[in-house]
């Protein structure tokens, strides 16, 4: 029983109708209280995975457990506690914001007061009789978030929620997500194709590329990986010899210098001493630490 896991997928595989494999052995684990950023470039398999989690796409291979229960056998019970926003806003253009929420209010067993509350949370309480088709994309996105919040869910699944939001909207969304997680205790799974967009709000990250999970862990763990992937740029009086001396650090030519791996500042000092002992003059010793975005790019590009 994985009762401390809110989401646990095991060996998810999915083959598109045209025979293209879109997911390969996807294992995701999201614990209660986490804000899990599901990252990957466009077409990596994020939306397919999220659609599988919500039962919108038929499960072909693998197992999905949500709240410790098999999704297929407990679909309605699970969905009662899940708020979702998948891809573009799914709203009735001929209805008002309030009517859109009214469509689902009783379905989720929410009160009228809750409708007003979620509209206030996303700042759409004063839209009156304005029909949703007259809303801007940002307003539609906010209303979709309100719809996802309507059931006061234990799990919130947001697929690219920042789409269509301006920078202020993104900051507001970030604050909202943090607040919902902290104050309401919601577990949140949100996808994005940009790490920078969500790195300030997530506690855990899963990176998917070409349908495969290539990293999964906490932000500090991603930071450690970042450290491991850091490079040191060195230029000496004899770079050919320097490459031989630093063979253990995977040296590579990099313009007029060479680039080597390093894990700590102590290693940098050791490399400096080794070069000095061989009578090499050091002209440049420059640590190049990846930022997370660069690391994300490197990981997904390496995998591609």
């Amino acid at each position, binding site marked *: 029983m994985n009762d401390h896991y809110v989401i646990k997928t095991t060996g998810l595989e999915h083959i598109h109708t045209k025979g293209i494999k879109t997911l390969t052995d996807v294992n995701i684990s999201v614990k209660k209280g986490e804000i899990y950023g599901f990252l990957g470039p466009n077409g990596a398999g994020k939306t397919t995975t999220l659609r599988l989690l919500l039962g*919108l796409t038929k499960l072909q291979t693998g197992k999905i457990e949500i709240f410790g229960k098999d999704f297929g056998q407990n679909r309605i019970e699970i*969905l009662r506690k899940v708020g979702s926003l998948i891809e573009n806003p799914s709203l*009735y253009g001929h*209805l008002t914001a309030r009517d859109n929420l009214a469509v689902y209010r009783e379905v989720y067993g929410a009160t009228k007061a809750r409708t007003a509350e979620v509209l206030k949370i996303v700042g759409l309480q004063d839209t009156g009789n304005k*029909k949703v088709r007259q809303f801007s994309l940002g307003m539609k996105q906010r209303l979709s978030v309100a719809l996802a919040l309507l059931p006061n869910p234990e799990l919130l699944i947001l697929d690219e929620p920042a789409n269509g939001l301006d920078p202020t909207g993104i900051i507001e969304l970030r604050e909202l997500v943090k607040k919902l997680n902290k104050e309401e205790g919601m577990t949140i799974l949100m996808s994005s194709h940009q790490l920078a967009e969500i790195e300030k709000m997530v506690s855990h990250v899963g990176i998917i590329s070409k349908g495969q999970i290539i990293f999964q862990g906490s932000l500090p763990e991603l930071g450690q990986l970042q450290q491991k992937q850091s490079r040191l740029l060195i230029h000496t009086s004899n770079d050919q010899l320097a490459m031989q001396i630093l063979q253990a650090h995977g040296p590579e030519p990099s313009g007029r210098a060479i680039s080597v791996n390093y894990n700590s500042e102590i290693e940098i000092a050791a490399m400096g001493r080794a070069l000095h002992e061989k009578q090499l003059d050091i002209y440049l010793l420059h640590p190049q630490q990846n930022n997370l975005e660069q690391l994300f790019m490197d990981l997904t590009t390496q995998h591609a």
Partner: protein
Amino acid sequence: MSLAITLRSELTKTKRSPIWILTFVAAIIAPALMLIAISETHDGGQPSHDIQKMAKGAWDAYYYQGIGILSFVFLPLFVILTSTLLPQIEYRNHTWKQVLASPQSYGKLYFSKFLIFQLVIIAFILGSLVCIALSGTISAVLNPKFNFYAHPLNWQKMWLATSKAYVAILGLSAIQFWVGIRFKSFLIPMGAGVMFFILGMINMIGYPVIDASKFPITYSGFIYIDDNVAKVTEVLWYSVAYMAVVLVIGFFDFRYKKWD
């Protein structure tokens, strides 16, 4: 969660949609045509045969004509048209994924949508009956020789005729409902519906190729042809059977459809 909740949810979606306007505008057409078609005089003031028809009971005759016109043409065309409008609310707004990610069973969703469709059909029929009454009232003023108020309306007969028309349309309504939900494009169900309706009418009243009593698209017209009186009960049962079978097939198609 009860079916009533899903039904209310589905009904809310039709709020402010053109479906109700269309329903009541469509309900006016046949009674308005009757005002022109049923008259004391025709062809430049010549007395018409309508006076004789109305002599035994103007309201009964007027309603018989009205329900007949509805049943033959307007009711099936209305069903074909509105069957696409209801699913298009979801397709046009890209809302299927939100609906299916909500805690509602596929069965409740499917059948509540069908029940809302039936509600629209019933609203159209009732609206038409009210408009026939208004049309008759105006006709009474325009055509005093019809003597509308000499005989009261036989309500029982009127409701029986209306009920038969409704039961006869059930088969077509289930077929159109299934096709309307099945296809994203509204042109396919509407085009196919109109085409089969026209072919069915030609088959039924012009050039019979197949037994019209087995072809559910034109059942509501079939029951109003004098030669078919003996087969009316049988055809009404067929209509219910078609509805039941198509609804079950349609449900499984809906349940296992790939929703993009």
